[in-house]
Structures are given as structure tokens and as C-alpha cells.
């Protein structure tokens, strides 16, 4: 039983194939502005290297944001199409919570995803329960928000093996209802 991990939420393209909860092959490359060009291409390469086909994939874990507007829609569109066509379970998880899952903190903490102008942040209790809504802050507003929390800069990569069981316990949702999380408001 194999799983495919897709993370396109920032300038890195992180892909992995897991077998029995262990990563058997992964790709991590800087793909600034190239997620659309590279993601399917690299998934095909990864499957090929592992001598697997799409038929062998039983679950997909996909990062649904926040971060690169284009990036997350690339990952989600691919995951939804695979999930719909091949009846593959798709687990979508946001990167703020994903980081929270691997953090061991004895006080309340903040996980973050940064972009050019600021930070998406999520506040969590030490038991990894979310506090309030995720928000987007400009760089200069960050210090004030940090008060009372341990702040974690964005991790380049999360060891998906260590949180695999927790992700698999997440509630299953209808494939058509899987969508990116955006947080930022649309400017019209």
C-alpha cells in the first residue's frame, strides 16, 4: 500500500512516496514559479523511479495552504483529479497544523508560513489545539502577536512519517469539497 505526499504551498516542491508509513522516495526542489510546469512531471518521475503506477496509490496527503496562491491550487487540483478518477482517499491538511503536529512545546505556540510581505500564523495550545482563526500579518505586526507564545519560523519540510497516523485519523471529506485555504481576503 502506497501513499503520495504533495506539498506545493511555497517555493519548494515537496513530493514523497510512502510505503507502509515510511518514505521510500522523495523529491524536494526549489521550484519558484514552476509548480505548474513541474508538479505532474515530477510525480510521474517519482512513480517511475519507484516502479509504481497510479494504480498503486491508495492515499494522497496534500497540503492545502496557506501560502502561494498558485502553488496550493496546483497541488489541490492534481490531488482532486487523482482522487476522483482513481477513488483514492485524499487527506488535505494545512501547513500551519501540519507543523504544529511535529512540534513539541510545553507552552502555547505559533506556527507560521511566510511570504514576501508577511506571515500566515496559527496559534496552538501545547496540546496542539487551535486557538482562534488563522490570520495573515504584515511583518511589522508580528512582534505584538508573538506575546505569550513560543514562535516557530516556517519549517522547510515536515517529516510526514512522524505524523502519518495522526493524518490518517482525520475525518474523510467528499473529494469535490476539498479546496485550498486562502486566509487572505480578495482585493477587488
Amino acid at each position, binding site marked *: 500500500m502506497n501513499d503520495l505526499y504533495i506539498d506545493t504551498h511555497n517555493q519548494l516542491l515537496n513530493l514523497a512516496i510512502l510505503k507502509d508509513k515510511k518514505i521510500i522516495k522523495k523529491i524536494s526542489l526549489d521550484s519558484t514559479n514552476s509548480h505548474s*510546469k513541474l508538479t*505532474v512531471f515530477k510525480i510521474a518521475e517519482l512513480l517511475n523511479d519507484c516502479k509504481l503506477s497510479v494504480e498503486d496509490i491508495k492515499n494522497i496527503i496534500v497540503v492545502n495552504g496557506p501560502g502561494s496562491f498558485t502553488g496550493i491550487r496546483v497541488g489541490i*487540483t492534481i490531488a*482532486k483529479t487523482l482522487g476522483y478518477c482513481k477513488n483514492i482517499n485524499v487527506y488535505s491538511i494545512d501547513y500551519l497544523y501540519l507543523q504544529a503536529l511535529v512540534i513539541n512545546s510545553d507552552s502555547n505556540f505559533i506556527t507560521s508560513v511566510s511570504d514576501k510581505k508577511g506571515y500566515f500564523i496559527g496559534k496552538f495550545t501545547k496540546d496542539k489545539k487551535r486557538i482562534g482563526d488563522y490570520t495573515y500579518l504584515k511583518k511589522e505586526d508580528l512582534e505584538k502577536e508573538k506575546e505569550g507564545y513560543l514562535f516557530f519560523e516556517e519549517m522547510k519540510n515536515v517529516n510526514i512519517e512522524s505524523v502519518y497516523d495522526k493524518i490518517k485519523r482525520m475525518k474523510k471529506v467528499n473529494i469535490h469539497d476539498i479546496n485550498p485555504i486562502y486566509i487572505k481576503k480578495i482585493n477587488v
Partner: protein
Amino acid sequence: MEKKDIFILAIESSCDETSMAIVKNGCDVIALSVFTQIDTHKLYGGVVPEIASRMHTEVITIVLDDVLKKANMKVEEVDAIAVTYAPGLIGSLMVGIECAKTLSLIYNKPLIKVNHIAGHIYANNLTNKIIFPTLALVVSGGHTDLVLMKNDYDFEVLGTTLDDAIGEAYDKVARVLGEKYPGGPNVEKLALKGKDTYNLPIPLQDDSYNFSFSGLKSSVINEVNKCKMKKEEINKENLACSFQTSAIASIVNKCEKAIINLKTKNFIIAGGVSANKYLRNQLINLCDKYNVNLSLPDFVYCTDNAAMIGAAAYPLFLKSDFSSFDDVNPESRLPLF
């Protein structure tokens, strides 16, 4: 041996419609699914790219499910996957492209990238088979081109707009007249109720095959301003009709010149503005006069839809013009010719 039928699953998401179709042999529409976002964008007076991109992502698998159910087919049964890659909104195009690439990966089907404007031209094959050589008039929000096609994907541009495209001019006039989005069709509706009383000049009456609409648009603005200064109510219906009469006359004049000079016996029209009934009627009269075979695409295939992408992909399929996963990328501006 009987020729094998070719089925193409086509995807179009270049602007505010998420559409998929299955087309047989480039001419028979087995199924068409169109999810339009027009009601959402109406609220903002025009297409908001970021909203369009989000909505494509939301509905992409729903549209796929719909088209397969309508066709009662499986993706396994099609021969190729076709997708619009340019021109259009990058964020919107991308959703269709990622879906197409993924389908190509899953089912090991060839991937065909199609130019949106070629799609509008080949929409004609869904109604009447295009006979070459033919003159093609491409009229849309971004195009006003008169093209000679001697064969498939063989485009010789005779003339183009020097400023605004015809659809753009309609939209700008709509704004001046206080009409809501989508402006073009609303101006056409107004024009239907009015008379050509303003006698606006017919643009660019020269020897070229080119077009120009910004001067005509300015004339409309001048008329509106004149009324404002005199504190008179503008007759919107008559002004819309006067604009339409002059704009279409300039297009039809250039088409007539091309028909006479090139002695072409076939004429096709393409693009969103080809749904304009006044333009269609004027071209019917013109082609009758010169005994030219005129093809008008069905209304349903004039606006953005994936069936036309399936039609345009067919000649590319026959040439085995396939693309790899890293070779299909969205481009906002990419001239077909």
C-alpha cells in the same frame, strides 16, 4: 478497413467558464459541460481573476464528473486529452492544465495543448465542416482579425485591429451608457430597440483590411457628453444602435473587400462577438450577394466552451502533435497568428 473514431476529452478554463467536453472526430459533440461563473463576476462589474481561479479549483472535478456522466463514457475510452493553454488568465488556465496533465498521467493518454483562438475558429466544425481555402473573421473581446486559411492551422492574417478589439469596444460603450457586465450583449439588446439616428462615422474606410474602433468609441462618449452639457436625456437605444451600425458596417466593408479581391468562396466567423445577431445577419446578406458559402457556429459554441477545444485538437491529434507534462504551461498572451 473502417476508420476508427477518435474521441477527445477537452478542457477549457481560460476565463470565467469551467468547461469540459467529449468530441468525436473533431465534429460531433458527445457531451458538453459548462460551469459559468458569470453571476459571481456580475457583482463586481467584470471578471475578477482571483475569484475566477478559486472557482475553477472548486468545480473542476464536478465538471469532470458531469461530462463523463452525460457522455456515459470513461476516461479510459478517449484517445487524447486536450486543454486550452493560452491566451487567458494564468491562474484560471492553470487549473484546466493541471487537471489535463493529471488525466494524461493516470490514463496514459496523449496530451494536446490548444490555443483558445484556434478553438473559436474550429467551433465552426461543430456546425458545418470548414472548407478550405476560407476567410475567417475572428471577433471577440481581444480580437478583430480577418484571416485567410488555406489549410488546417495555416493562418495568413490579412488585417487586424489597430486599437480596440470589437468586443472591447462594445464593453466600453456599455460602460459609457451605464450598462452592466456583460456589456457587449447588453449593448446589442439596446441597439435592437433603437434606430441609427446619430449617424456616427464608419471607421477606417481605407484600402487595408485593418479595423479601428477607438475613434468610434470616442464619438459615442462625445455624444453622451454633449447631452450632459445640454442637460438632455441621452437616447441610449438610438446611440447603441448608431454605434453598432457603424462598427459592424466597417467590419462588413472589409470582409466584402477581401471576398472581392481574393475571390474566396468560403467564409467562417469565430469568437464571442460572432453570437451578435446583427453581425450575423449582415454577413448572411454579404455572402448571399457574392454567392459565398457562409458558416456560422451555433450560438452555444460562440461563447467559451470546451467542445471547440476538442474540435481544434482533432487536426493536431491527426498530426500527433502531442506535448509532454513539462511542456504545457499557461500563457496569458500568445498570438495564434
